[in-house]
């Protein structure tokens, strides 16, 4: 289990309990966190679940695969802490994670 705080682009915060093994995207979608579309449902096919990960948690969020890297390269407003949230698996190590959602996925 991990507590994850989602911060929307306007600063609104929501802290949610996340089960291990789910993706950060699923936690967001199941709880209707705004700013994440996740059109493909987590297949790493659409790049519409882009988030910014608290830099302190980048290592815990896991290694980026080649597919994710090249998908992110085409997202809008990419930063060094950008990730596709469907590719981050919830683990105990993510307890306290803060992710910020962009204003739009397009």
């Amino acid at each position: 289990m991990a507590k994850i705080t989602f911060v929307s682009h306007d600063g609104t915060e929501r802290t949610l309990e996340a089960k291990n093994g789910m993706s950060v995207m699923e936690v967001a979608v199941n709880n209707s966190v705004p700013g994440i579309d996740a059109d493909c449902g987590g297949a790493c096919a659409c790049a519409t679940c882009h988030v910014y990960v608290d830099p302190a948690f980048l290592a815990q969020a896991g290694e980026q695969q080649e597919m994710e890297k090249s998908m992110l390269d085409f997202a809008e407003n990419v930063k060094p802490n950008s990730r596709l949230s469907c590719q981050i698996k919830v683990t105990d190590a993510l307890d306290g994670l803060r992710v910020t959602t962009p204003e739009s996925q397009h």
Partner: protein
Amino acid sequence: MPAGEGQRIVIVAGGQAAAQALQSLRQGGFPGALTLVGDEAALPYQRPPLSKGYMKGEVEEERLYFKPSAWYEDQNIELLLGTHVPKIDRASRQVQLGHGGHLPYDYLILATGSRPRPLPVRGADLGGVHDLRTLADVERLSPKMVAGRRIVIIGAGYIGLEAAAVARQMGLEVTVIETAPRVLARVTSPVLSEFYAGEHARQGVKILTGAQLSHLDGVDGEVSAAILADGTRLPADIVLSGIGILPNEELAKDAGIACSNGILVDRDARTSDPHVFAAGDCASRPLVHFGRSGRLESVHNAIEQGKLAAAAILGLPRPAEDCPWFWSDQYDLKLQIAGLSQGYDTHVIRGDPDSRKFAVFYLKNGTLIAVDAVNSPPEFLASKKLIMSGAKLAPAVLIDTSTPMKDIAAQAAA
């Protein structure tokens, strides 16, 4: 007049388009009653994983749901699951419910989807003959997917080939038969067909193209073999049919709504009845970037039309109509498709198929109309935008892998 307080919107059937319409209607501020009536017993769920991870047992059922059941309660959405709608009475604006009774509507969204085209051969009703469309289909099929068993897959489209990949990974002996001279013939170019046929062959799948199924043989009511027109006998423990889908348009047709290979809709997903909308696989829509109408069988289309219908009903501005896109996962190959390649006059291969990372661009009169990108997200993502802008691209530019796709896109946009 847009929908509002005191009104009821009814959505028939609960797939991707329905789930999107529900979300968009509530996000758009619709305060009235919202009811989803669907044949299937499960909460609205994602279908793509059925022929991929879910079939392999990698994903639990709950993870396929678009939203958990609590969400429907929070949003005050009434779910009538496992409920068939046999008839629409447009004059009194009501839908009939299978178990009796009626449900009135102010606006109706038909998101009835599609169904597998039935196998038109003798023996199709034997035990062990399966379709792959619903959770219930996978529940019937999964326990039989045991290493060493023989599965014969009828049809080498995306469903057939995705299922072949999964079956092979699970250790089954897999044969795919296809009437066309090549795999994926209906949906892509010979370049991709050759690549995927080669990949499946390397993985140990036997592919028979130009093969006509004659009938299925059975023993004690269970399928035992697929027999081809030339007499070839393919012993089978399981037969899986993937020969295309048919739009579920009968409900609309019977109510006198215009249909032609799908429920005909305008750019706002509105049918010939201004109070009835249709979205997803069942709808035939204007394909504005391609100058024609047609049905798209895809996640993108279902999401987009769900949004279009909701916006039109609420009197909100029309959401963007994006470039059509699709994907298919087979083995470690991710195919991402943007645009519609039908009618292309030139194709350009960027990269080397042998490297398992390449893209095929399709051009018509010099304009990019589609791409098939294998393990190549940059080519896919750049093309989505280039296709929308009607970009003209020289084959020599697209073929040059020393120039990153990002730069090619930037130059084309300049």
